């Protein structure tokens, strides 16, 4: 039978997994409500990068602020009420979270399903989007933060067409990344976004 200290470690591990799941879900909810300052505040000050879709690679906390606040959130410009139709619903599904033995680092793979609406080519459109995350998290001052956010898009299609007919509506590069996207190979490329984990049974 284990002692109090070991038991405490077990409890902490469980709490860590729960908190990371919560962090990921809260990210999703803040994104949906377009609270991009809140999103940026979920990242560590020593965050590595964010690489989403075909936006490009954004490095460091400064890059993350540039991506979410300036680019996606369009800075401090208040939203015109007539733009309220522009929306995202990003649903976070199926997290596989693995804690590093150090207890202060973790990795997670998630699936996302999105229903989005925004202008493309000057025309308001509705989209279905699917993607996987392979994220990294870090524990600082007792709280969990995002260290690395890597969102790999499978397809980005219009509601009217579907992924087989039109897997990608087009490219969405941002004007000011630190580098090109590192792994943007949408369907039907057959690209498999690598897992951070080994097979749980065979260990391979």
């Amino acid at each position, binding site marked *: 039978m284990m002692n*109090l200290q070991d*038991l*405490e470690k077990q*409890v902490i591990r*469980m*709490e860590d997994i*729960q908190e990371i799941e*919560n*962090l990921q*879900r*809260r990210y*999703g*909810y803040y994104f949906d*409500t*377009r*609270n991009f300052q*809140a999103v940026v*505040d*979920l990242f560590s000050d020593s965050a590595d990068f964010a690489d989403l879709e075909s936006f490009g690679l954004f490095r460091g906390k400064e890059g993350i602020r540039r991506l979410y606040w300036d680019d996606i959130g369009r800075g401090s410009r208040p*939203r015109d*009420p007539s*733009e*309220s*139709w522009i*929306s995202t*619903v990003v*649903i*976070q*599904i199926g997290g596989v979270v693995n804690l590093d033995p150090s207890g202060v680092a973790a990795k997670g793979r998630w699936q996302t*399903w999105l*229903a989005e*609406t925004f202008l493309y080519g000057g025309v*308001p*459109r*509705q989209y279905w989007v699917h993607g996987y995350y392979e994220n990294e998290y870090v524990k600082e001052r007792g*709280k969990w*933060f995002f260290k690395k956010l890597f969102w790999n898009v499978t397809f980005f299609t219009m*509601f*009217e067409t579907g992924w087989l007919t039109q897997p990608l509506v087009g490219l969405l590069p941002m004007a000011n990344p630190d580098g090109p996207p590192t792994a943007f190979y949408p369907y039907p490329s057959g690209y498999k976004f690598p897992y951070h984990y080994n097979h749980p049974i065979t260990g391979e």
Partner: protein
Amino acid sequence: MNLEELEKRVTLMEDIQEIENLQRVYAYYFDLQRWEDIIDLFSDNAESVEIVDHGLFLGKEGIKKMYWDWIGKGIRSANQPWIQFIITQIGGVMDFSPDGKTAWGRWQTWLCEAKPFGAFPKQEWLHGYYENKYVKENGKWFFSKLHWNNTFCSPFEDGWLKTPLMGLMNYHPTVKPDAPPTAFHPYPSGYHFPYHYKHPITET
């Protein structure tokens, strides 16, 4: 730390798991159209239930009216076979009161429905958020307050951009709410369903 503190933390982890289960079990009963079983998931001191724009229903009596009379149409057996509810529960974020007896949870839902609207059978995509309240009574968790906020209810054929809301559902010939809906502002209003929680990092 000592055994007593550790027990508190284990209990909290168990509470989270139990509430997640409660929420998911609710949803499966909804889809199975087992309305009595849903009512039994609510505390006898339940506060209220609010779903789409049906209105605000107070107390355990209100809960019975909502699920048994309105949604369940007061019948014991299931609806006609083609009527389908699939309300998938995703991404729960839970927070607890210091005494561990009350909890709040935000969830996302994605729905595939088939039900009559007027004279016609319709198939719809829906999205919504929950902000629910749970209470612990005699060691078990119950629903105290359920609030489902509908983002869109769109016919399968159209999509949320074209037809965000199939129609209003705020009238029933015999079942009367206790008050009008408190927060029915579907897409594309731009309404953000408020969080029960503060930002985990900045605490604003």
